[in-house]
């Protein structure tokens, strides 16, 4: 299973939440050093799949292998950065205090310097001294994203990191994601905005707990004969409905 070209290998994953099967036999590989987009409508199971990869989700069947270890293995702890969909940062601390705290528990060499680096990465340097509780929604989301960037994670799992951000900031963040990937880090980024799909190296399209496609954006366009990824996704949905 220790395939060094594969960062995440998911095989036949099934998850039951609230009595419903929200992931139904999902299988795919995420290549190392790539930016993989996880797309699909609200409630299709994106967050659940990410939780399974990070190792905080009870699974009903199948295997998830992350960086050669079973998901949730303690060895993976400081190798994965996970930004949850809701901001998860201390509202009563400043941005700098908050990130310095997380950098210290991560045991990076120079917590203060690492905090400064990630604050700059998410473009919050001008707000570094502000209380997190006084940030705007988008700024708070970026503060939360910055936590995942601390240290040197080999895998970044980012749950809708660009939601609620303006086009300029979204573009900046996607540029940042690719810069991080160039250093060999693997990124799995969820979104339900199709125009972000074009910026991914690979795409995983989900619907109602089932994987509809695992392809590159070009491959998807070619396969569905649609130049627009949104149309391509709709086409896949129709095909899967017709097949069912």
């Amino acid at each position, binding site marked *: 299973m220790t395939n060094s070209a594969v960062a995440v290998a998911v095989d036949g994953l099934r998850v039951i939440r609230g009595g419903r099967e929200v992931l139904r036999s999902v299988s795919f590989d995420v290549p190392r050093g790539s930016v993989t987009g996880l797309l699909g409508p609200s409630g299709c199971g994106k967050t659940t799949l990410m939780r399974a990869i990070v190792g*905080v989700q009870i699974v009903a069947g199948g295997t998830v292998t992350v960086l050669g270890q079973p998901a949730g293995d303690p060895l993976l702890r400081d190798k994965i950065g996970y930004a949850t969909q809701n901001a998860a*940062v201390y509202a009563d601390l400043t941005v700098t205090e908050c990130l310095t705290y997380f950098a210290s528990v991560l045991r990076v060499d120079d917590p203060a310097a690492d905090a400064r680096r990630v604050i700059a990465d998410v473009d919050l340097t001008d707000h570094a001294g502000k209380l997190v509780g006084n940030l705007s929604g988008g700024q708070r989301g970026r503060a939360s994203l910055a936590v995942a960037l601390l240290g040197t994670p080999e895998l970044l799992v980012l749950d809708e990191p660009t939601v609620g951000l303006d086009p300029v900031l979204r573009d900046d963040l996607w540029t940042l994601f690719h810069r991080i990937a160039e250093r060999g880090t693997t990124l799995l980024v969820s979104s339900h905005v199709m125009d972000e799909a074009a910026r991914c190296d690979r795409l995983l399209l989900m619907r109602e707990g089932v994987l509809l496609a695992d392809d590159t954006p070009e491959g998807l366009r070619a396969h569905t004969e649609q130049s627009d990824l949104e149309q391509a996704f709709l086409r896949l949905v129709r095909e899967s409905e017709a097949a069912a």
Partner: protein
Amino acid sequence: MLTSIRAELIKQTRRPANWLLLAIAAVLTLTFAYAIPYAGLSSGPSGAPGSGRGLPSMLPEAFVGNALGGVPIFVGALALVFGVLVAGSEYGFQTWKTVLAQRPSRFTAYGSKLAVVAIANLIGVLTLFAAAAGGSAAVAALEGAPMNWPSAGDIVLGMGVGWLVMTMWGACGALLGIAFRSVALPIGLGLVWMLAIQNLLASIAAPALEFVGELQKVLPGPNTGALAAAMGAASETPGVDALVGSGHATIVVAGYLVAFCALGGWLMHRRDIL
């Protein structure tokens, strides 16, 4: 573990709420142990609780008991609030998952919370003793009374007692914060228990029902009151009552401390917190 404790400690020092709790504990202790009794001394008995106490109880010789007078009730309650904040706020900010999904093990994270509760209460008890010492010195200076201080052994023993009681309530708060995964409800319930139910049990139920009287001897509150009484806290202070011996009380309070810590750790370990 040490890195986690340090990071947790620094984080807590950045929170204004914690300093507020400390300030309230010191101000209330000074008010009820010195300011009100001293005012009562010069203006004659006003009927306010504690106002009828004589000058000797306010002099440096008796400051250990005065520093501990509030520990069974309001200082303990503040320690409980602190414990709830330390553990429970992680749920409110949804930060447990940020801390735990990638970083320290649950054991380390919980252990550093407890360590911080213990360290913060040490700071708290030192502050109370400093405040009470200052208060008693001020009274002695104003009245031209001699400044005879208790022996160092008595002072350290008193600090140990205060620390044990406050840390026990702090651990209780942390347990409640974890059990209810929040801040507001555990603080509310903890205070209802400490300030209302405990007093009702002691003043109404215990005299009427014998088994409640027996029960009092194993409940945390009355045992902390007995410890404060053993250290010289004035017996008319609410919650201070030499119901049991100090040895018995020490064992019971330490037992609760261990039990609260263990139960909180078990809950942390067992439950899905995300």
